[in-house]
């Protein structure tokens, strides 16, 4: 299936609409009974100081300025230690200097941690870019005896998951059928049968058949799942595909498969990413 033509979209919104000078939520004096929430007062405007002037770039390719506090923390912390041991005799170090040095080292430690804290703030942009691990091959393999409808959905789902998230490898398992796509540690020129056997073994060893809860490992996933994910994986998300069990009076959902996504980025899948991935899982369960 190749239902995915080239994708392009452009918002036809004038730039001044995206960044209005005045509050675009102001309404005129039209009186009507409606469910509209009352507009907040203009205090939000007054609080919006233009601090964007403080943002800058050094223009060094590959260097992200949000990590600057960390490097300054390392540098100044080292200089403080140097100053303490080499700048004066240990006998002549005054209590005042010690206080300053303790405060300085605390600040240096805090500066080193700052970029890590900033990663979890709303509006923070991902710093790192997805890299492809060494020794991986790009593959696309599917079980051979899948019905056409499910085959199309698996192809579409694997494509959209790799395209719209930071994942570099996807493995979808639905009632014994496998679809693997992306960059995996496979040998060159492996046949479809060999690849399918390779992935089937991975799934069996990981015992993910009856998974009912979402598993998300945002970092160092390859240390816990060496045999399951490509080498160099940092983030791993396993989203179960559940089917409502009609016979079960309690309404418990029966696991029929899972979607596995791996990425070389840490904290690769945001809440919204995980929501969309769960939506794709729900799409696949309808095909079962």
């Amino acid at each position: 299936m190749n239902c995915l033509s080239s994708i392009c979209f452009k918002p036809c919104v004038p730039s001044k609409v995206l960044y209005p000078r005045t509050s675009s939520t102001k309404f005129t004096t039209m009186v009507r009974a409606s469910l509209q929430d009352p507009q907040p007062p203009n205090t939000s405007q007054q609080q919006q100081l233009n601090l964007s002037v403080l943002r800058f770039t050094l223009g060094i390719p590959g260097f992200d300025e949000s990590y600057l506090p960390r490097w300054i923390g390392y540098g100044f912390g080292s200089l403080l230690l140097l100053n303490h041991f080499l700048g004066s005799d240990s006998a002549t170090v005054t209590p005042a200097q010690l206080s300053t040095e303790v405060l300085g080292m605390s600040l240096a430690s805090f500066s080193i941690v700052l970029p890590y804290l900033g990663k979890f703030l709303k509006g923070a942009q991902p710093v790192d870019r997805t890299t492809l691990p060494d020794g991986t091959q790009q593959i696309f393999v599917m079980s051979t005896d899948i019905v056409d409808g499910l085959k199309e959905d698996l192809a579409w789902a694997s494509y959209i998951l790799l395209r719209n998230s930071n994942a570099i490898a996807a493995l979808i398992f639905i009632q014994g059928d496998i679809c693997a796509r992306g960059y995996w540690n496979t040998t060159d020129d492996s046949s479809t049968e060999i690849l399918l056997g390779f992935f089937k073994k991975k799934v069996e060893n990981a015992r993910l058949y009856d998974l009912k809860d979402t598993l998300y490992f945002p970092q160092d996933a390859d240390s816990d799942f060496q045999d399951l994910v490509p080498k160099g994986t940092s983030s791993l998300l396993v989203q179960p595909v559940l089917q409502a069990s009609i016979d079960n009076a309690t309404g418990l959902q029966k696991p029929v498969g899972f979607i596995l996504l791996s990425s070389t980025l840490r904290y690769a899948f945001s809440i919204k990413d995980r929501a969309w991935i769960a939506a794709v899982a729900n799409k696949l369960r309808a095909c079962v």
Partner: protein
Amino acid sequence: MEAGTAFRVVGVVTVNTHIPIPIFKKSKTTAFQSRFFTCSSPSPSSTSYRGPKPKRDFLADWVSQNDDVVRTLPIYVGSASLFAVLFNRAISGIAPVADAGSSQSRADLLTLGLAVTNILAGLVWLSIRPKSIAVVNPQGVQCRRLCTALPHVALTELLWVWESLSDITCCRSLVIVYESSCVLQIGFAAESSSGDGEAVSVDINKLIQGSVYQGVMKSGAQSYLANLSLYPGKSELSFLPSNTQAVILQPLGDKGIAIIGGDTIRGFTTSDQAWITFIGDKLDSTLAKHCNKS
């Protein structure tokens, strides 16, 4: 992409629902989690998965829950340190001259530099804080109209699209027109002038001949009207609630269009737009196959 929390499931018990998810409304969050993040009964022995379980990342959760506090924290830390250094110099009887001649002064200068770095980092964090925009409840009536001539497979996919969009994005209205017929009108719609509580039907001829439809079909690309109230062609979308805040017009190939109305200005993110584009392609493929058959 928005910063997210480190989502965790502790053991095999229920999803941790008390972590506030800042992107969605609370009602949507609850409904979405109950549908998509399905909870199994708390019975560890019911699953055969015995592998590693994710650990709770308390720091990431705390930062996400206290976003405003964390943003200003470096400013307070830096300012307090700055005053502490000056106070230390004052009470120690050191001359108020910050030269690098003495070990004390060098240490003070380095600490001042670190304090200023922290203050600037805090100010930069404040500058990247997303502007919060109020949600506007749609003014209209709920409706659910499907083209029953379509097979079950197509209808299931249409309803999946609606459930996904309404749970994950700010979508409150969805209209899908394909091959000059309205195959889906669901969510909030404008109330008809007769006042009988019925929703306004989609006038297909008017829509197809209008500039909105023509423009999208001509470009073949998604169109995002982030603030619908400023768009002159808003009158062509009279079937949507009058206070719809944002609209995405997604072409479905060259035969149809999906009109997605949202309740927040600029409520659809770049990620949402990308997902909607791909969903539009899938819908086009499905509807093309099944509309030809029916």
